């Protein structure tokens, strides 16, 4: 038998769960995608994922938002991607994490979208103008 263990009201959807309808489930189960597998795998596929992860944890630790707020927003981001029909096999997870982070910091007034865009362009310029082999740094006029 399937027993849904529902602890208490909380963010991650437990409140909306209900016992599945056996007939509907037969159809749903047949059409379900298979689960991607890994063998341990790297913790982060690329360094930016680690940085995005750490930024969210540190900002929350400092009290700019609670982890519950974070999970709620991340869940909404994942749901929106699913609703757009994007395949969600877990490999794009940190892209959704990053989008959630941008949304969160602008919503909390820690920075704004314009500043993020200007700064992103500044970094792209810095890469274009830094000779190969030299560390990429933002210069004053690029930052501005």
């Amino acid at each position, binding site marked *: *038998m*399937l*027993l849904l*263990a529902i*602890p*208490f009201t*909380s*963010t*991650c*959807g*437990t409140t909306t769960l209900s016992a*599945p309808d056996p007939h509907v*489930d037969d159809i*749903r*189960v047949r059409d*379900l*995608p298979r*689960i*991607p597998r890994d063998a341990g*795998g790297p*913790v*982060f596929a690329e360094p*930016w994922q680690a*940085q*995005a*992860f*750490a*930024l969210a*944890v*540190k*900002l929350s*630790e*400092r009290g700019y938002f609670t*982890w*519950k707020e974070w*999970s709620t927003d*991340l*869940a909404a981001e994942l*749901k929106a991607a*699913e609703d757009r029909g994007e395949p*969600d*096999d*877990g490999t794009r997870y940190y*892209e959704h994490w*990053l989008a959630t982070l*941008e949304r969160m*910091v602008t919503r909390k007034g*820690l*920075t704004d979208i314009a500043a*993020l865009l200007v*700064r*992103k362009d500044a*970094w*792209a310029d810095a*890469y*274009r103008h*830094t*000779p*190969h082999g030299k560390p*990429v740094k933002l210069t004053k006029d690029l930052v501005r």
Partner: protein
Amino acid sequence: MQPQSEIHSHEHQAVPSDPVLRVKALESLLVEKGLVDPAGLDELIDTFQHKIGPRNGARVIARAWVDPAYKQRLLADAPSAIDEAGFHNQYGDHMVVVENGSKVHNLVVCTLCSCYPWLMLGLPPVWYKSAAYRSRAIIDPRGVLREFGLELAEDTEVRVWDSTAELRYLVLPERPAGSEKLTEDELAALVTRDAMVGVAKVQMPAEGGKP
């Protein structure tokens, strides 16, 4: 770094991918404002990459197997028992340990995002974050377990636990038969991440293999 543009790539650096630039923009702005400390970021990343991982959880499980009093404390009050084992939870979430038995099998999922007991298991594997696992674990847990190569007896009750940001679950797997002579360290080496999520059982190593 993957070159995104071939133009000037010989004399200048290739512009990194969009997410790389967005993260650099976020990080540099937040650091400038003093909202995050770059050393703290590096330390956190290092901790998650090198120090935290399923080994923490495996140590706790092995201890519960060899020490019945500890097991009772772990099931009654997981955060305190885990703290007692030397793993201090700084993330503020509550944790509950659920025990597998001969007639009960527990499976953990986070249906809406990817809540996971980081301190015990490190970061979640890619399948745990996939829409397929998040939806199917609830609808068809036996089918999911079968895909992971775990066929449960018909009379085994499957309990699915939905982790949240505030309450995360860890499975206490069954101690494998034939492991009576193993030390706590040897037992810890047998405990896998998948077993603590509930998609596998802990197995004794094949004949001749060392635990």
